[in-house]
């Protein structure tokens, strides 16, 4: 027992030298730049912070309202408000350079060139631990999402960014892809180090007076527990299609959710929406996961990864047989 306590290894290798102390990350857009929650959260303990989506030029984002609640979830249409890559490097990277927690910059764009240029500017900058390519943001008119729904587009943007940077590169999938496995394969083949899955699903809400959509931008991305079954399905499908590490995202709000994503094939998870209700959740999940692993006598949480995948069990038939009544 004493020995197990000492040797428990929760580290995660996301490729190209990006090794996290533990598998609990915070999701892009829900934890700002890591500085905002500092008063209430022990930020340095988190596995990694994915910062708000960063574009080449500053963006003012979408008109309000930008968020609303839905059953067991929420919609957001921030519209990628951010100070641009230059602003991010000036304002936040100096802080990050002194931090223990790695910060992964979430990168968004409307063209392959946009993505490449942002990646190039991040390359070699102190404080930048890696890149998460957001090819799946449903909240901007052009751009993002088209790359996420088409294997060729996804492969092309990944390859271009890969060529432009040696930073660890994680690509974030959309749950809306008709066959997410082909997208994931294209991304892996193009040289991504890891995948994160998933971003939000496009949804909407109606204003209380029912004379207009509630969100200023009409559509918003659905996140939170409501999304979890879909995100879990994506992780499970992708885990059977690629060999690079997968970070699960979507409605993580408890240790059970973490374990579900791991069983489906994720080596780590990101916590997003749940941070709003419970900012200390990510740090608590690290402790709960460690306690769980110890109770189960594991050396590392990685022993849990993929336990529910079909390789380990008999595969059920996928369609009902016909019978004569």
């Amino acid at each position: 027992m004493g020995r197990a306590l000492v040797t428990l290894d929760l580290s995660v290798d996301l490729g190209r030298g990006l090794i996290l102390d533990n598998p609990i990350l915070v999701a892009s857009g829900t934890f700002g730049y890591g500085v905002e929650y500092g008063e209430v959260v022990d930020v340095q303990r988190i596995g990694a912070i994915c910062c708000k989506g960063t574009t080449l030029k500053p963006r003012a984002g979408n008109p309000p309202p930008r968020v609303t609640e839905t059953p067991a979830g929420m919609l957001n249409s921030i519209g990628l408000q951010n100070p641009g890559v230059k602003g991010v490097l000036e304002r936040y990277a100096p802080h990050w350079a002194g931090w223990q927690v790695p910060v992964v910059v979430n990168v968004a764009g409307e063209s392959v060139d946009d993505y490449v240029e942002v990646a190039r500017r991040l390359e070699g900058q102190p404080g930048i631990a890696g890149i998460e390519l957001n090819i799946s943001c449903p909240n901007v008119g052009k751009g993002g999402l088209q790359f996420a729904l088409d294997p060729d587009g996804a492969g092309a943007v990944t390859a271009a960014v890969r060529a432009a940077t040696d930073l660890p590169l994680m690509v974030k999938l959309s749950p809306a892809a008709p066959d997410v496995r082909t997208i994931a394969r294209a991304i892996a083949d193009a040289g991504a180090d890891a995948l994160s899955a998933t971003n939000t699903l496009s949804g909407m809400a109606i204003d209380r007076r029912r004379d207009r959509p509630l969100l200023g931008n009409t559509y918003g991305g659905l996140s939170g527990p409501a999304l979890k079954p879909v995100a879990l399905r994506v992780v499970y499908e992708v885990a059977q299609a690629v060999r690079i590490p997968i970070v699960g995202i979507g409605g993580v709000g408890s240790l059970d959710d973490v374990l579900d994503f791991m069983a489906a094939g994720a080596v780590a998870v990101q916590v997003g929406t749940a941070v709003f209700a419970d900012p200390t959740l990510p740090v608590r999940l690290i402790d709960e996961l460690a306690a769980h692993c110890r109770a189960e006598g594991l050396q590392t949480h990685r022993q849990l990864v993929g336990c529910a995948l079909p390789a380990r069990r008999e595969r059920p038939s996928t369609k009902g047989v016909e019978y004569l009544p």
Partner: protein
Amino acid sequence: MKLLSGELLESRQLLPGQWLQRFHAPWLAGGAQAGQFVHVRTPDYSGLVLRRPFSINTFDRRSGEASIHFRVTGKGTEWLARMRPGDQIEMLGPLGRGFEVDPKSRHVLLVAGGLGMAGVRALADEALADNRQVVLLFGASTAREVYPSSLLPAEVEYVVATDDGSFGHSGRVTDLVGRYEAWADQCFACGPEPMLAAMARLAATRHQRLGVARLAGRGRGRQSPRGSSVARRRAWLQVSMEQNMGCAVGACLGCVIMGTDGPQRVCREGPVFASEEIEWDARW
């Protein structure tokens, strides 16, 4: 800002569908400033995932008590209204920037529309404690929605307007501002956005109507950047804004409105702003 748990001491229906809840929450009461808010958690109810923001209606540093005053408008407030004394409520607060009162202001005008009362209520206490004179203009749709004067300190001059004329002045609360705009050194407003926009129009033209030379003020303003405490203190009108929120700490950009200097987070740069900071007819 702190994650804390407040014990509900008293919960009562103040007006139809409106509740006043008093909590024992020393950290909150100790650190609060008038105009700040708390983000209240509604756990395990009906699939709710977001906290709910409420103005800190009153606070008393000595007793460690703070109160909120809210209307039941949906599932979150419905849940909150069901809580009973003794229940522990999870809160994050105090949050945002409160009202900035110029130490030299003697006459303070508060303007509240409906639940906006909760936004300025604590400022009445604070201003009186600092020996300022307080006039509170309050607007409601009808008599039964009027905030009871018994809940206000006696020293406050309380003037009411109702849309249907069933109590006090018949018409909008903003109609009453003209009488006090010369008297008031500073004005603080909270209420529905159209009311605040009307207040902003009044404030923008006030110096013309009053013939007050504002050059001096402007000159000094230039030295303090827009949005700074100093600049806000010098603005005649401060408004408390509302917007749907995710995090309430500045991380998610969910509560952003358009300001004259670009996007502003209601939870962080606000909820209180000088009226000049807001782009009232924002085109995104």
